């Protein structure tokens, strides 16, 4: 590809190997970024996207050491010859987790941080901060404490802290990962606007489906550190493996026509029955007497055979709701019955016999020196006999296919493996109900699909319930949807019924996806919701 003279960023034959590793993280990448364009950088975990970003923003080679070959030029200057001060005013980087890059306690301090470090006069800093906040439409947050604001707003604040330094190239590392669908949509619109206002945006994301909505000018696709595709968005849909990154449902459908139909998913749950395992009866909850209710009169039951997806915006009360089932929170009014017993009269440990709860991030619970001890922790707390513990641990590790890691330290495993260890830790307790908070968070498309497939086919659970932002996850895996909004159950029923009501979904800040739309269209033929590949045989 020829490189126009005015490219803002030029990468030529870039290869980098960390000095701690044997293999290069990226190999022979060449591309350029034009003024005011949105470029999508797509790829699964480990494709080298983080390393590439570090080569552009100067962390490589300034902070991370290793072998660098080839060239990266920003506005015609080589990155390794530029100072950090110069670079930071040319290239801005938004890291994946907004929480982990905000260093100020208050919005004003956070946004001003970079300019303070450059030693600008105070008046000028304040003026620029106010201008940036206004540009992003978040002036109302100026004097707020960072800790108490929502995830979507945190990301805007982190972005403000970067834009205030007036970079013309913006690197965004999986900016949608921690956002609910409505906030993701807003964020994408904002990125488009930034590009239209003259900033070049390099957007790293494996949720290709959603990013295509803002029509990126070009797409770069990496696989295991190598450049597989560089060109317009349309071309990507024909080249890339649709099982590795999430493409629009119609594109998958078109591609899957010629492929083998995927094996049918056979959930290993018992048939549905009427005796409820969990029973919420008029549950209202507030954290402290002087605070308002966060749950209002919630009624629902979980029966054997249920696979329930709990959908709703951030802060709608999903996690609060689920914590009640385990007795981590007790209702202010009403009651929760776990197999007929009031959770007020049960300790959490007693409830854990029935209900296994997997938290969002595995690093928040893994502590033991070996996987084996990690898995034995739960059953030992529940005073299971040692012989049974040994058996259950072996069964749990086999179920998640991690036998070779039994003696490894869980903290040294990859994120996906840790996630499986955290599931196995719950499996080993032989609980009858599995509840998961954002089971797919932090995993790429390929990993989370194989992960969810495996869980649903695992023997041992009578019901599964998961909280998610990902509407497609609900479409593919659930046989029942609980739509939560403002602490109330807004809808409860089979997926086709709940997800058909577009207006209600939007009112709950849940946005329909291309897969949902396609499924609704084909529902007369299919009779149920299916994954995109499986729809191929029904589409005309």
């Amino acid at each position, binding site marked *: 590809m020829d490189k126009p003279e005015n490219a803002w960023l030029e990468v030529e034959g870039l290869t980098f190997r960390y000095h701690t590793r044997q293999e290069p993280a990226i190999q022979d990448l060449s591309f350029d970024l034009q003024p005011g364009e949105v470029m999508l950088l797509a790829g699964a975990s480990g494709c080298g996207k983080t390393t590439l970003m570090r080569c552009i923003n100067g962390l490589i080679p300034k902070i991370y050491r290793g072998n660098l070959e080839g060239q990266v030029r920003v506005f015609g200057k080589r990155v390794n010859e530029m100072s950090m001060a110069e670079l930071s005013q040319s290239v801005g980087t938004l890291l994946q987790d907004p929480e982990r890059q905000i260093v100020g306690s208050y919005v004003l301090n956070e946004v001003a941080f970079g300019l303070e470090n450059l030693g600008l006069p105070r008046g000028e800093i304040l003026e620029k901060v106010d201008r940036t906040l206004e540009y992003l439409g978040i002036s109302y947050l100026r004097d707020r404490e960072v800790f108490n604001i929502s995830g979507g707003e945190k990301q805007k604040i982190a972005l403000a802290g970067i834009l205030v330094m007036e970079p013309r190239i913006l690197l965004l590392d999986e900016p949608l990962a921690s956002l609910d669908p409505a906030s993701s949509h807003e964020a994408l619109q904002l990125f488009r606007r930034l590009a239209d206002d003259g900033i070049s945006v390099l957007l790293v994301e494996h949720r290709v489906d959603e990013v295509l909505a803002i029509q990126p000018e070009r797409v770069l696709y990496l696989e295991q550190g190598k450049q597989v595709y560089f060109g317009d968005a349309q071309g990507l849909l024909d080249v890339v493996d649709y099982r590795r990154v999430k493409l629009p449902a119609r594109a998958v459908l078109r591609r899957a026509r010629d492929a083998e139909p995927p094996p049918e998913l056979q959930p290993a749950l018992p048939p549905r029955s009427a005796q409820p395992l969990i029973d919420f009866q008029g549950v209202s909850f507030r954290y402290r007497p002087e605070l308002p209710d966060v749950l209002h009169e919630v009624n629902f039951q979980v029966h054997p055979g249920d696979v329930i997806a709990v959908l709703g915006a951030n802060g709608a009360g999903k996690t609060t709701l689920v914590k009640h089932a385990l007795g981590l929170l007790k209702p202010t009014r009403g009651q929760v019955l776990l197999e007929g017993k009031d959770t007020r009269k049960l300790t*959490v440990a007693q409830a854990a016999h029935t209900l296994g709860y997997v938290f969002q991030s595995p690093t928040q619970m893994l502590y033991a020196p070996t996987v084996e001890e990690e898995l034995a922790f739960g059953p030992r707390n529940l005073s299971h006999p040692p012989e049974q513990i040994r058996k259950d641990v072996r069964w749990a590790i086999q179920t998640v296919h991690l036998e070779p890691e039994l003696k490894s330290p869980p903290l040294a495993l990859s994120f996906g493996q840790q996630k499986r260890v955290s599931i196995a830790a719950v499996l080993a307790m032989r609980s009858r109900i599995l509840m998961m908070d954002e089971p797919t968070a932090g995993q790429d498309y390929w990993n989370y699909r194989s992960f969810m497939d495996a869980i649903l086919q695992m023997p041992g659970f009578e019901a599964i319930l998961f909280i998610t932002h990902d509407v497609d996850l609900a479409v593919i895996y659930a046989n029942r949807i609980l739509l939560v909004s403002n602490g109330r159950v807004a809808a409860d029923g089979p997926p086709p019924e709940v997800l058909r009501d577009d207006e209600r979904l939007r009112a709950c800040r849940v946005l329909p996806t291309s897969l949902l739309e396609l499924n609704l269209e084909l529902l007369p033929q299919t009779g149920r919701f299916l994954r995109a590949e499986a729809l191929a045989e029904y589409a005309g």
Partner: protein
Amino acid sequence: MIVSFNYRPRSSLIERLDPRARWIFSILVLFAITMFWDVRFLLFFLALTLGQYLLARLTWRETRRAWYFVFFIMTTMVVVNTLITSSGTIGAVLRGTHTVFFHQFTMPVTGWSWEINLTVERLWFAVTQVVRILSISALFLVIPFTMDPRQYGATFRGMGIPDRLAYTLDLAFRFVPTLGRDFQVTLDAQRARGYEVEKVEGGLLTQIRKMAPLVVPVTMNAILSGEDYANAMDLRCFGLHKRTWIERLAYHWPDYLWIGFGALLLLGSIALSLLGYGKFWVPQILLQ
């Protein structure tokens, strides 16, 4: 939430002073207090620091726990010092000659003997100690309730501490609520696995080891996030230049007055002690 700061604006006079002036004043007065063992001088300081406490508009409810804590520590120290050990910091005077109570214990078998000789002097010394500890406590108890956590970094920067160190303070305050929440999440996650922190079992060693499922995940998670924070800071030029602090502090005349007052107290105290005042003093009435 498990962790929250005690600061809230209370529109007191003391809050209008520059935090640097208040730190400097507190340190000056601490040194002044430590020059005296004469209860008459110490009572003056107790009145002074309690005055500051009252000016700060603190309520008993807020500070009750802290006072209990002070009373507990103070009582053990003073009681042990008075009853058990036979010498004191300020030497022989403590032995005293006016005995109120005397008893000699002899340990059976070993033959070690242990005397309790309570004299007027030693009891009065205990009283003096109490006044002294209370005045220092009242001096420092005010700080958490009346100083805005977001000002610590800028305050210490303004007192000449280098940028990096001063920013470390700001950053530590930034992390407190986040790590507090992380701790809560880990506690819940482990409780969901049947972990019961309240349950007493095993000996001391088992009890401490039982903290690992809480301490390890929270610590390792924090360490892993540290790399992101460091990257985010390097990318925004932290530590390259002398930085501007938008949290601006400026001395006004009351601040100079406040520091001047503290300095005067310390200089006066030094002068008095050089002149021989302020040594341990027992009222004559008690010795008759």
